[in-house]
């Protein structure tokens, strides 16, 4: 994947806005927002890759909603996301 020097793909302003949604957060430094941004990119790449693996197992080339859901359910690291899915 093409990587740009010192930059992230996600817009920093949006990331900061999302962070500030939490009322308990007072201030967040730009450096912190940048770190979170990079971590988020890596995180979603991992999630997407695992969903892709599941799709591949079923001989499909398209990732579906269900694939992402299945990854969340079976991998502990994604457990915090389980609230996104209705029981």
């Amino acid at each position, binding site marked *: 994947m093409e990587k740009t020097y*010192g930059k992230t793909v996600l817009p920093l302003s949006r990331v900061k806005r999302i962070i500030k949604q939490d009322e308990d957060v007072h201030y967040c430094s730009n*450096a912190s927002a940048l770190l979170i941004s990079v971590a988020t990119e890596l995180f979603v790449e991992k999630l997407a890759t695992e969903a892709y693996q599941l799709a591949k197992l079923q001989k499909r080339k398209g990732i579906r909603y269900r694939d992402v859901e299945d990854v969340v359910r079976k991998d502990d690291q994604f457990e915090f996301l389980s609230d996104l899915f209705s029981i």
Partner: protein
Amino acid sequence: MNDGFADDELSLPKATVQKMVSDILPVDLTFTKEARDLLIECCVEFIHLVSSEANEICEKEAKKTIAAEHIIKALENLEFKEYIAEALEVAAEHKEQQKNREKKSSKFEQSGVSRDELLRQQEELLSRARERFKNQNIAHDNHTTTAIPVPTASETETKEN
């Protein structure tokens, strides 16, 4: 699920996330709109999770600003250690860029030209460009013939031979 304007503001740009995911996956792989939107929600949840954890760490130190070290600690606590190295690398690159940018801006300060003067010069350049553009358009509308040279009959004959 709410698809209002307000949600977009608090979410991540769909095109950006789509491109990001497309870049890491094989070219012929696709994903549905629902899958993409779900990935975006997951990103937002992740951001909340990490920032919330970092905020707690920050408050324990009686600080008001979440700093880089709080994020690192949060990622460790949440078992996302694998992301720390690359995150730090990008942060270091960013810092390097900032330093270079500062060097350039101090050059501006040393140029001896005031900001107002620069703005005036810029406005002058812009209005000149606007004039040129306007004149170009008028000229284009008025033109019935162009000055492009057309090869004569003798020239085309020699070519064919």
